[in-house]
């Protein structure tokens, strides 16, 4: 697209913005129109596509930038074997680290980071609708219903930590811990970012 071409600002229909300046304008206009900003959703493929919630699904189905996610379907005949799961090289093991920065992370730390630890080889897709089909190679793994999931979510208290550390759960497709991947309503960016 010609960078000089004008597009309409989603926050204020009266604004005609040059394509190349749109990101700068969106930041400004989003801040100036908090009302409108709350009602708009951002397209998962392209942050400049912003539209009312009701139009999002339809947009996602036909967004020209979808290929960002699905390019991987391009399977070329001449490289049949490379389409398989990656062979993770294990030959070399690094010597043990002399330092451990994790241990030094601020003592005021409330909760250790959450670690999702599963054996599923495929992860559900964003906005798992019929329009969005996962590339075939991700479907080769174990189905999500049979996935064994270990959550390593460490809570504040030491007793709770013990409890949670290696609890095995069987994830159901609707299990909230894993499958929130199916996009609910994405939240607006945290307020402190809008300086």
């Amino acid at each position, binding site marked *: 697209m010609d*960078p000089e071409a004008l597009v309409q600002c989603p926050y204020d229909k009266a604004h005609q913005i040059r394509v190349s300046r749109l990101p700068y304008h969106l930041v400004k206009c989003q801040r100036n129109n908090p009302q409108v900003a709350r009602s708009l959703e951002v397209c998962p493929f392209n942050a400049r596509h912003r539209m009312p919630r009701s139009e999002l699904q339809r947009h996602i189905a036909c967004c020209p930038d979808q290929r960002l996610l699905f390019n991987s379907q391009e399977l070329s005949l001449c490289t049949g074997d490379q389409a398989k799961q990656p062979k993770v090289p294990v030959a070399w093991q690094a*010597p043990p680290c002399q330092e451990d920065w994790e241990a030094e992370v601020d003592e005021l730390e409330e909760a250790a980071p959450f670690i999702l*630890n599963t054996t599923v080889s495929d992860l559900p897709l964003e906005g798992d609708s019929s329009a969005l089909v996962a590339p075939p190679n991700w479907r080769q793994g174990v189905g999500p219903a049979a996935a064994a999931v270990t959550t390593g979510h460490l809570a504040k208290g030491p007793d709770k930590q013990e409890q949670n550390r290696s609890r095995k759960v069987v994830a159901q497709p609707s299990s909230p811990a894993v499958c929130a991947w199916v996009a609910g309503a994405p939240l607006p960016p945290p307020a402190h970012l809008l*300086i």
Partner: protein
Amino acid sequence: GTGRVTATFREVAQKTLPSHPSEQRQSLQPCHPPPLTEEPGGRGRQRGPQDAPKTLGLQISAGFQELSLADRGGRRRDFHDLGVNTRQAIEHVRESKTGSSGAMIKLIANFFRLTSRPQWALYQYHVDYNPEMEARRLRSGLLFQHEDLIGKTHAFDGSILFLPKRLPNKVTEVYSKTRNGEDVRITITLTNELPPTSPTCLQFYNIIFRRLLKMMNFQQIGRNYYNPKDPVSIPNHRLMVWPGFTSSILQYEESIMLCADVSHKILRSETVLDFMYSLYEQVEERRFRDACAKELIGVIVLTKYNNRTYRVDDIDWDANPQCTFRRADGSEISYIDYYKRQYNQDISDLNQPVLISQYRRKRGNVTVGPVVLIPELCYLTGLTEKMRNDFNMMKDLAVHTRLSPEQRQREIGKLVDCMKKDECVQKELRDWGLSFDSSLLSFTGRVVQAEKILQAGNVFDYNPQFADWSRETRVAPLIHAKPLDNWLLIYTRRNYDAANMLLQNLFKVTPSMGIRMNKATMIEVDDRTEAYLRVLQQSITPDTNIVVCILSSTRKDKYDAIKKYLCTDCPIPSQCVVARTLSKPQTALAIVTKIALQMNCKMGGELWSVEIPLKQLMIVGIDCYHDTLSGKQSIAGFVASLNEKMTRWFSRCVVQSRGQEIVDGLKACLQTALREWFKWNKYLPSRIIVYRDGVGDGQLNTLVNYEVPQFLDCLKTVGKDYNPRLTVIVVKKRVSTRFFAQAGGGLKNPPPGTVVDIEVTRPEWYDFFIVSQAVRNGCVAPTHYNVVYDTSKLKPDHVQRLTYKLCHMYYNWSGVIRVPAPCQYAHKLAFLVGQSIHREPNLLLSDRLYYL
């Protein structure tokens, strides 16, 4: 009105172009709005009087910011990224953002402290004219008829007046007379009082400083100031170097300082017309226009009559200097007469075409049209690709431009000396109550420890002075060697020897690296692009590991075609080698070693690693490529680590519209990177650290509010309880900060690993500098890192050291580089795609460094 008459004062040949050049120019003029008067880019633009009062009074600092940046020569852009206060949102560095490890080192930086600043407040006034006067010069002239009231110390841009004193009344009315005898009422209204601590005052000091440079006869080109009186000429290359300075006054960590660095403007003592003539000699007539367009469009020219620079956007072959244009006052004038009258320039070649510069500048609601330039009066600036490849020229140029630390310090010192000697400058400084330290800032930095390089079965140290381990890496086996079982070697008949030589030397160097190698399938081709492509189509099988092509020249088209085919249609790693690089027997082994390492990386091998004392950490690197000159699309490269040792990288790229610097598709990129990480590790990273390179001055605010939310959004959609730590670090290579290490009596470059997080950093940011690379000659440039978002709770010391560690991980260079490896990988990827492929490469290649 009377304003119009004087408004034409500094007009240049600037007009809206007729859309059909062959038709009568005159008849087409009326359909275009006449361009506004005044020089393009002239300081103190003529502000529409109606919009001036609105910005005033309400929000003073913002209003002044606009004044000083938009109205005073710059574009409406804040080059210093003021007001992006990211540190306050990062809780764990509010108290302290400094690291602790490493050895102390005494440093000097190119900064001068402001030792005194006005202790009085600055008073801001709005000035109105009745009847309305438009020309800024006229407005100033009329106002300063009342110097007894206003005083000698003032700053005025046409509507906003700054004085160091308060006028007796809030509203003052005075009367002036124009040259035509017309009476004008001038109303001076006090709108604001700025205390000496106000950040707005800082901007004001910059304006004063720029005025001082002007007083010392420095010429502003772009954002820097040059001294045309003291040029260095390099006659054998027809070059001229103007010495100059880049300067800025800002609030740094402890104090307000002036940062001054040496800058050089390279001019060619050749006009565009000369260049066209010499080109005419070289190419056939029918290709001449195309050749001109290819060589000239996009270059920056300097017009010596007003010392301004313009970019050539087009060549109008149908026009010539005898054509006329309509001036703002409605009169018709030819370019010849115009340049004669306005600048006393004679144009001798009456049949030359004219150059068009799309000078885009908004004046109120009118956009000024293109500027017409005469080739004979335009001097070429900068270096062409061809000149850059001319080793001797670059060597001769480097004598003048690449200054050693001591020379550089001396040059910077000259600026201060000049200021001291100049009585006018001293007076101006005294009047405003400003003074600077006369010696450079000195303080203490830290040199963090050198890293141990880990290879299979071998751990070694490198010489920290050179930050290079090419010798050591040759003998140790690689971390992960990919076998060359089945590979193609394609060459032309003429390069058979080179191909053979490559093959033989590969057999020599690969065993010690641990690379298993079979003899290549050798294929001879004709030296044509189609021949190469046909061979590729016929000979590549699913088992092919890599394709090596020996090329007979550096011609880009063949390389592009091969890369395009092998990165998109048939995704196979490929290595192109120009035959000439293999021609010197004495360097052959070293070069083949490098080629072998590069081939191994492209196939997914791993060379070395360093200790990374963090678990479940994913590093992301982003860089942009844009070639605005040739109007190509902008490419964002995105690279993410796949393992904890940072030896494997996943990559994506986003093709964006031309000239776009900010990335739209980061959410999808990060999502695929997380998915790929998951495939490799069977868990998701608990920390993500993003290094974002390629951010220009003034884009920080947009980056923080446009790109960071994309990452956060992405992480939110992964899983409800998935809440990894995110750190976003903006990497900047182009900074004017320079550090010198005090050694004995002299100055040296600081050693690799030097970290600075005090004095010259900014209080509102969580930022630091690292000197990571070693340079042989000239001054080393530190890299600036600005942590704009951070929930990692990592100690600043660890963030600094991690960053330095990552500068060791770029596999195309067995040494420490200027930026973290992911940034350099992202840059390489974006460059390859932007230059040769023009679309996203096949994702089957995405887990290796095929773009090296």
